[in-house]
């Protein structure tokens, strides 16, 4: 099995069902947008796939590594998953005490055991592709929001994961940068056969940068299909609502 396959995912907090019967797949080379209003469950899906939180039903499979319901397994049992899934957090979460370059090389050196020289080569190449190589020696607090995000993407991609998760990547970017981010992500995916699952409010970004879109509403998957089609021709009320409110969404 390749890519991401989520089957019947269910997450309960107390008496509330946060996610119910979610079936979701991301193929290699595909960029999938995960859309929905705030509280629809987008972040919960990403955090479950990244094994940052427990889920209560269904399975999550990444390239043959399967997560089951119950507590999050120990970090030492998640090595395979960790090498296959990268994540870019909404607030980038770069390590504040390390330079941009050291942020990118930390995991390859310490988790994967690469030599420093190799890690640095790979990191510089990634930073170059992402257009932030000139900021390699800067500390996170010295970077602009856009630069920090690109460094965070480089950090997540350094171990060469087959799936990249991104949480609201456009929320801190101005419109011009959003377009540029879409282009960059396209290049990063299509070459290497890597899949991406991106949670977003941003209809324009989803339309221009993503192949497919999945709409969540109150913990349920209500609509999915090719991004242009679904967003041009919404069938579910929740999708229509998203399109209507795009102007006053936080991303706008």
């Amino acid at each position, binding site marked *: 099995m390749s890519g991401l396959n989520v089957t019947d995912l269910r997450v309960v907090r107390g008496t509330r069902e946060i996610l119910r019967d979610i079936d979701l797949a991301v193929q290699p080379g595909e960029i999938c947008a995960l859309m929905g209003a705030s509280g629809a469950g987008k972040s919960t899906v990403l955090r479950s796939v990244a094994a940052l939180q427990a889920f209560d039903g269904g399975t999550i499979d990444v390239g043959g590594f399967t997560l089951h319901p119950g507590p999050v397994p120990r970090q030492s049992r998640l090595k395979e998953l*960790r090498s296959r899934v990268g994540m870019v957090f909404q607030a980038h*979460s770069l390590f504040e005490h390390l330079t941009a370059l050291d942020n990118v090389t*930390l*995991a390859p050196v310490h988790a994967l055991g690469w030599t420093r020289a190799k890690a640095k080569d790979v990191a510089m190449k990634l930073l170059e592709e992402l257009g932030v190589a000139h900021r390699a020696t800067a500390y996170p607090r010295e970077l602009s929001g856009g630069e920090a995000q690109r460094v965070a993407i480089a950090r*997540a991609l350094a171990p060469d994961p087959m799936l990249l998760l991104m949480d609201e990547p456009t929320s801190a970017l101005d419109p011009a940068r959003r377009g540029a981010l879409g282009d960059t992500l396209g290049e990063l995916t299509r070459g290497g056969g890597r899949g991406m699952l991106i949670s977003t409010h941003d209809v324009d970004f989803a339309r221009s940068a993503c192949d497919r879109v999945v709409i969540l509403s109150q913990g349920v998957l209500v609509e999915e299909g090719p991004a242009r089609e679904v967003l041009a021709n919404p069938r579910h009320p929740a999708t229509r609502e998203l399109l209507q409110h795009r102007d006053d969404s936080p991303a706008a």
Partner: protein
Amino acid sequence: MPVRAMMRRTFLPRGPAILAATAIALLTLCVRASAQSAAKPELRWGGDAEGGAPFVEADPADPSKVRGFDVEIAEMIARGLGREPRFIQVAWASIEQSVERGDFDVGMSGLEDRPELRARHSVSIPYYEFHEVLAVRPADRGRYRKLSDLAGRRVATLGATMAYQMLLDEQGRSGLVPISYDDDVHPYSDLVAGRVDAVLLDNIIAERSLRRMGGSGFIIQPEAAATGHYVAVFSRANAALRDSANEILRARMRDGSLEQTFRRWGVWSPAQGAYFQRVLSAAAQSPEHEAQTAAVPGAGERSLRTYLPALLRAAVITLVLSCLAMALAVSVGIAVAAGRVYGPPVVRAVLTVYVEVMRGTPVLLQLFVIYYGLSGVIRLPAFAAAVIGLGLNYGAYESEIYRAALQAIPRSQLEAGRTLGLSEWQILRLVRGPQALRLALAPMTNDFVALLKDSSLVSVITVVELTKQTAIYATNVGSWVVPGILCSALYLAFSLPLSRFARRLEQKWSAA
């Protein structure tokens, strides 16, 4: 002429007793103050009830009262003057300065007669003759008869006393190692335990300790190493009161009531009677006024030359001790903080108890427990006990700083580490720890400066560090001005660069 130091007699059977004795003293003051009627004028006399019997001790039957031969002599003087005696508790080492300040009219508590005392204050005729005697373990009876037999051996006494000065002089001659204590009980218990090889102290104290131990454990060598006298001290301006007191003391020597008092406290001997005769006949020939105004020329300069090297050595001890204790505190702090943040509930509970006990009890008490309390189980050298005591105590404070700093690192930083495949240990070591350390730096520096100052507490377990050495110096020159300035300068020389260094490090990191 050796510089004779003031003798400090502090009776400390164990840590909590200090607190109890202080409480008793306070109570005494309150009760006396309220019960005192204005009928008779008072004679305020200062002494230290921590010195214990036979000098001054709290009365076991009524702890609001004191008893002892010094108490009875004070009463004799008061009665002779037609006054009501009123006891004022004062720390032994402060008696001279307190009497000069006017806190009370006369100070008594087994004060040693010495030229410096006479140069600075009005001093009574000596009312008791004592001997410095050597106590050794029974097996060493034949081996250590005199101080000169103890080359290279550890010999204990009270700090800042005539006996201590004798040991320092002998150190220069034969390489004997003087060990100074803050009380007169532990030198003997440490002698029995083998921590020291001999104790040099007044015969009264030696005999008292031997009685307390049931007459075994050590023996007192019959040959006295030196002879000294106890006196009462008055302020320099109060020579008239001193002269009246001398008249009363002589009268009590003549009529035998002083002898009765000393007999009551078990410290009378025929030699004492002969001594009284000498005092009485000498008084008939020459009045004491003349001898007493003779100043000691150049005492200040000589003291500075003598004590500066000792002060610098003590400063090095303070610094080394503080650095080692801080290193231990940081290690303990990191381990405890990590255990409290990452450990299972049982570990967390145990560590919480540790932290609360260490922070909730006085470090002084902890030092006593480690050095004396545990001596039956493990006999730590004083310096090691000091490092461990301060290190364990400060470790509890450090752990709270680190715990707060660890918890201040946002969860998303840890999650980023997890998604990158770092192990929990690597996340702590590479992500959480380094960031927490930066947050902890300023409070850590404050703690180190505090530790530098708190290191003065270890003098209670015989480590002579900067403050203790300064106190010895100050008692000798009779002033805190020069010693105080030198001592402060040395502490500041340590703490100021440290604060500067920390500020620069912080600036560097916050710029990053």
